[in-house]
């Protein structure tokens, strides 16, 4: 019960803080709030039994990606902006509403059954224990085994994607430098 309550609190806090985040004036404040959200999400992963994912979430998101974000925000050193919001049309509200309802349906047991397997949903979900993968103590081993067997090709493709991103970001940064040198 305590675990369920803590999960609820973490989830509600994460949603609340993300709502705060998108309405901040200072980008640094928003980045810090996002770091807290990511740590709360890591806690939720831990409760759901995905220990390795939780630790990786903190290392990669909070420890690397957000540091780069904060670095760029500090490098630009922007003043706090006046909150300026874009216009929203009635069509967009309707679309969001439809999406929300659809997602709400998918979140229910029946919808999840379709989403996850396309098989007979109720038997699939009821046949298994509610949470905690059975092999929780071997989480790292299982995840890596699956990653390097069934998902090997996806893994390789992602590695090429990362390589392309490295090359791409270097090219973008270099090009700007050359332009500056020419103009000055």
């Amino acid at each position: 019960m305590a675990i369920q309550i803590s999960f609820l609190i973490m989830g509600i806090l994460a949603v609340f803080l993300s709502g705060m985040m998108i309405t901040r004036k200072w980008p640094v404040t928003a980045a810090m709030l996002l770091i807290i959200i990511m740590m709360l999400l890591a806690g939720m992963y831990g409760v759901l039994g995905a220990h390795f994912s939780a630790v990786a979430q903190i290392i990669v998101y909070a420890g690397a990606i957000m540091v780069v974000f904060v670095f760029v925000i500090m490098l630009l050193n922007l003043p706090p902006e006046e909150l300026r919001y874009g216009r929203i049309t009635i069509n967009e509200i309707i679309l969001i509403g439809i999406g929300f309802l659809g997602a709400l349906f998918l979140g229910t047991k029946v919808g999840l059954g379709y989403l996850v397997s396309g098989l007979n949903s109720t038997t699939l979900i009821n046949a298994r224990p509610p949470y905690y993968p059975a092999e929780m103590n071997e989480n790292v081993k299982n995840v890596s085994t699956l990653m390097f067997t069934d998902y090997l090709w996806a893994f390789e493709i992602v590695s090429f994607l990362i390589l392309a991103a490295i090359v791409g970001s270097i090219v973008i940064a270099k090009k700007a430098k050359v332009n500056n040198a020419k103009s000055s």
Partner: protein
Amino acid sequence: MPSLPELGIYFSLLLFIVGLFGVMFRKNIIFMMLSVEIMLNAANLAFISASALTNTIDGQVVMFFVMAVAACEAGIGLALIISLYRAKSSIEIDDLRMLRG
């Protein structure tokens, strides 16, 4: 009370919608990218919850791929922001209307 993975799916839904609002309404590119990160995190939460729900670990593996894609997106996006700021000295999305006559 729904079980924990189901709650996780609902939370991921809410987080995704908040992130979507952030992308739609903010005019600052950094805020838009931060909102995209929230949306990716919501997707990750959905994957992990689905993995706990079905008692498999495929969702956790996919979560790592999403994380790698997010890292690529952040790297490229921030490099673009910096080069845009050098060219325009502004990171408002409305100021980037070069193609508009």
